[in-house]
């Protein structure tokens, strides 16, 4: 393994030495300096979209505002994580997003932390998706499926299935549901015999998993031993094919397998 060269920088006056390629956010965390984040997730490629993690960076004498999650460290870099401008931008971002998704717990918590009250001037929108793109990156980078992507642009930008129709690739793994910071994705498992109508008009009978956002309903596979539904059939087929498993590998659920 090649050793990455080390880079020395200063954050809030404190010197820190980190390997080349580290981001400012990671370096700050090493120093226990807390920077709030929203679209950032340590398992995903940085996006740098929400602008909550902004800091002031000074390089070769020139200062600018940058998102710490996507800014790579450099030798001699000076970082300030709490200048007046930085704090103002963070508050502004939360204030704007709070009007978009007033019910999102993560935003309410951030607002409290930063001392922000909901703006009276902005009409609440009640759109929980704040276009952070975590679901999209997780689906692509972790699951390897890319069932969803952004649709539209500007204010209308939203995570969606292709053409807003039933996603043909979604395996119903629920990674998007679990990673979404605002709870914008609804995932529901319906029980044996329970019926549901999907957005395209088709009917599905439980046991099944329904993800409204991607307009999918997937039948669940039942465990041969305990009889409990344990994962969408389509997902198991996907994994079997991907890693070339024997046909009967997913006949039993994880719990029964352990026993």
């Amino acid at each position, binding site marked *: 393994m090649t050793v990455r060269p080390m880079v020395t920088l200063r954050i809030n006056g404190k010197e820190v030495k980190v390997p080349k390629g580290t981001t400012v956010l990671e370096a700050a965390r090493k120093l226990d300096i807390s920077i709030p984040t929203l679209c950032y997730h340590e398992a995903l490629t940085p996006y740098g979209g929400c602008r909550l993690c902004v800091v002031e960076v000074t390089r070769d004498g020139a200062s600018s505002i940058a998102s710490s999650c996507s800014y790579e460290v450099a030798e001699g870099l000076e970082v300030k994580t709490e200048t007046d401008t930085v704090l103002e931008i963070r508050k502004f971002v939360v204030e704007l997003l709070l009007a978009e998704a007033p019910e999102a717990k993560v935003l309410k918590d951030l607002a409290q932390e930063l001392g922000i009250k909901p703006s009276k*001037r902005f009409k609440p929108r009640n759109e929980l998706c704040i276009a952070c793109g975590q679901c999209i990156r997780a689906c692509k980078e972790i699951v390897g499926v890319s069932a969803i992507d952004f649709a539209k642009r500007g204010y*209308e930008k939203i995570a969606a299935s292709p053409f807003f129709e039933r996603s043909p690739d979604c395996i119903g793994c629920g990674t998007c549901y679990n990673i979404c910071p605002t709870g914008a994705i609804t995932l529901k498992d319906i029980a044996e015999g329970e019926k549901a109508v999907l957005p395209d008009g088709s009917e599905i009978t439980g046991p099944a998993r329904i993800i409204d956002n991607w307009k999918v309903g997937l039948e669940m596979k039942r465990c041969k031993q305990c009889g409990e539904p344990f994962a969408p059939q389509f997902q198991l087929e996907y994994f079997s094919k991907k890693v070339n498993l024997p046909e009967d590998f997913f006949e039993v659920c994880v719990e029964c397998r352990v026993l």
Partner: protein
Amino acid sequence: MKVSGKKDLQILKEKGLASLFPDKTRIMVGMATCCISKGADKVMTGIKEEVKKRGFKANVVPVGCTGLCYKEPTVEVIQPGKPKITYGDITPERVPQLIEAVGKGGVKKEWALYQTEREDLLLDGGYHAYCSKGAAKELKALPKHSEIPFLKKQRKIILRNSGLINPENIEEYAARGGYSSLLKAVTQMKPQELIDEVTKAGLRGRSGGGFPAGIKWLSCSRAEGKVKYIICNISEGDPGIGMHKSLVESDPHSILEGMIIAAYAIGAKEGYIYISSGYSLGLQRMEKAVKDARTCGFLGKNILKSGFDFTVRVKEGGGAYVCGEETALIKAIEGDWGEPRQRPPFPAVSGLWGKPTVINNVETLANVPLIVSKGAKWYSSIGSDKSKGTKVFSLIGEVNRAGLIEVPLGITLKEIIYDIGGGIPKGKSFKAVQMGGTAGGCIPKSLSNLSVDYETLAQAGSAMSSGGLIIMDEKTCMVDVVKYFLSFLEGESCGKCTPCRVGVRRMREVLTDISKGKGKKEDLELLEKMAKLIKEGALCNLGKTAPNPFLSTLRYFRDEYLAHIQRKKCPAGVCTS
């Protein structure tokens, strides 16, 4: 024909000269998008039919934009031994009478705008004389090219071929000294010498902030890595503005030649020409230019026997405004979402496919052959102290003579609006000029003595940017104008970062309230704060400059905002509450 040296280029040039200045009549019809929208295609067809019907020998040639958009469709006629005559407002109905006169060797004086006795050959030096001096006594009353107010203060070096050559004819381009700069660059100059020359010339990027082109080239040429790219950015998208469109439609080879020289200077073997959708004619002409340049050996392997290889791909974009931003443009070429990313790394270090990349705007590149041929000293003698050369502008809006103009930097706004543009129509008074498109700002009448250069415009809260000049008269409401620009940007924001996606939208909502007489007294303070934070906090220059129209109008027209908020009145009578 394949050109492998000076001799071949001379042959190509002579062919072009024979086509440009033939021993029979040459009728040139302005056929850029601006002209076609006014019916030039019908005029062209009509002329061809009339010429055929009347049985006289004439070459009817489509050319680019003459710049005289206020007189379009325009037709120019060259007849051996006679001055070139420029006609304006030639509608299809006027064609038979015009061709009748031309067929008889005469001039249709009523529609003639001016005459030209000689054509400067900028790159070679000297000129081509259409006729001996004073040959046309009967045309004494017709003004000379140099006497036309619209043209007097212009300096056409970038537009030297626009409206004169057939943009799809590489020979005609060569006739005007085309590709001689490339020959000089790759056979007589080292890459570093070229970079030094461009730096010395003081060439600055002709879009965005006016970054020095030489420095951009230098950092890319010094960047680590064997594979480097050059990208030509043809994606201006500001509403109502079309300098780049006109340039690529009128003289694509000048851009291509500049690009090949730039590639040689930075050490790129591959390049992309990124043309935004909506440039269908430009795309077609650029594709033809690339094909012809390849046939002639200006592209491909061992260009002009110099050992330098370079290929170009023309890539049509999807039309998003944000794709004019460097990092978004790169992502679009890579086939990804056209979304900007954080810089650094700058494209000169890590650009297309992660390789060092120079992205130059179309007009920046068109300057390069001039600098190579005429030298940095000549080039830097044009323009102002820190802003060298000329700038092409779309002069539009409430102005008598709208058109595509080219002026030396350092000219005053007043000269452009009054001397070139002929002032404001219908006796109304000039109120403000919006410069630099949506990223720019409004400059009021009181500052019309302002020098048009990068620094002065930035200090005044505006920008050069790609070069739009929208003239507004007293009947324009500034709140309404800003509302328009913000709604344009709201629709064009990629939506990646919160300040731009949500902030610009919320600013527009507050402005809409103000324009409807529902503004609150604390709104201006709120908008100012939002503008400041969007400028600071947005990811890319689309967001960072989005508040500029608001900030500049607030600076110069605060009273107008206050009238809407306090008195619920729109002084210009535009907004209805």
